[in-house]
């Protein structure tokens, strides 16, 4: 399998406090990989480094192609409608407005939020806002999708609905790296999972889950947590 994302010995510290220490991992093309670990163990920092938003102190990062990212907070612009938020990246890339409209509507349709496209972020539920943030990341057709705590702050229904959308993406071959501490949702979704230690974070275990049913996945992860 071609490697789409690779982190090799990545370390990062802030004000002398080590957050990541020699983290190494890979994500194959078309693979959905999860990263779990205790709160504050540097999962978000790792994702920001992979997205190119921060530089590691040491180690190497390689990402093939364009990155899309869903941030922990939805970061929908309050002054734009959901449709304009979803099409933001395309607007930045000077895509023709007809193309932007077509892509935005197609994504909204896939994610079941087309009826909200004309509304503003403060007018929609947390689940819809999160899906809009996901649609915005997908609109630019990224080669790798990074998701930071995609289930955070959502109720059970919204989590389930979002998970269905993400599963559909995973089945469609979207390369995804998700960090979360919602183990159940991730377990259901990913092909492989990395478990990080408390800070300074290192990879404690790598669990292969592809082809396993729910009980086998649960057993496999419980063995290392």
């Amino acid at each position: 399998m071609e490697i789409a994302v690779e982190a090799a010995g990545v370390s990062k510290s802030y004000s002398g406090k080590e957050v990541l220490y020699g983290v190494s991992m890979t994500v194959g093309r078309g693979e959905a990989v999860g990263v779990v670990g205790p709160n504050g163990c540097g999962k978000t920092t790792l994702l920001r480094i992979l997205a190119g938003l921060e530089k590691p102190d040491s180690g190497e990062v390689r990402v093939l192609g364009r990155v899309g990212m869903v941030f922990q907070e939805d970061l929908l612009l309050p002054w734009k409608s959901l449709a304009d938020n979803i099409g933001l990246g395309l607007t930045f890339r000077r895509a023709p407005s007809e193309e932007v409209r077509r892509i935005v509507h197609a994504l909204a349709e896939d994610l079941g939020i087309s009826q909200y496209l004309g509304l503003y972020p403060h007018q929609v539920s947390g689940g819809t806002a999160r899906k809009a943030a996901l649609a915005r990341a997908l609109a630019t057709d990224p080669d790798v999708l990074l998701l930071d705590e995609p289930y955070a702050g959502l109720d059970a229904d919204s989590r389930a609905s979002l998970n269905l959308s993400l599963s559909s993406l995973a089945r469609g071959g979207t390369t995804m790296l998700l960090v979360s501490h919602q183990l159940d949702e991730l377990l259901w979704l990913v092909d492989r999972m990395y478990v990080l230690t408390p800070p300074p974070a290192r990879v404690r275990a790598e669990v292969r889950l592809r082809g396993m049913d729910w009980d086998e996945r649960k057993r496999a992860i419980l063995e290392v947590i």
Partner: protein
Amino acid sequence: MIADVTRSIPGPWRTALYLASADPAVLARAAFITLRNAFLGFSLAVAAAAILTFISRLSPLAARYVLALNTIVQSVSVLVWAIVAIMIFGVLSPVPPVLVSAAAVFPPTLSNFLEALRAVDRRLMDLARILGAGRLDEFRHIIVPASVPYLAAATRSGLGLALRISVVAEAFGGSGGVGFMIVRSYNLMEPAGVLAWASLLVVIMVLMDGLFLTRLVGVAERWRLP
């Protein structure tokens, strides 16, 4: 004679009577001229501050020059701006009150813009970067709208300042406006006129704040990122 005028402060009743007996067309014209001067001066200051804010983002050196320019403009007295503008454009020109308002409003507006820029959520800049925004896109789609809640608050104080300064500049020239009418009443030894015109200015400011600026700030607050 001047001493007599300054010592005879009329009561509210006489001031109200003066206002009631004044020609409404004259009142409206003076109020219109002052409001026009204030709005134009404020708009000019906002435009200049916006351009310089954009320039200040280009490099740390540009930011230092913008700050230095702001300090220089801020250091020049309104009196100097008024006299120089009248020397350049003439006493009857409508330009000096506009320019003087702009010069007085520009420094706090630029400071507010720069502060708003600093206050733009770092997460939004990360988002812009991930989505491939250029500098102009960042400015247009992220920075300017994200600054709106701060700018609305700055507009509230900036327009008030523009109005007060415009009146001072009008007092020096002969182009009309509330400031011109205050000085005219003073020169005609009509203390009730001085207070009446000053009261009109207060009414204009209160109405502008209540009808427009407070609502503007309320609407702009919706643009604050949760």
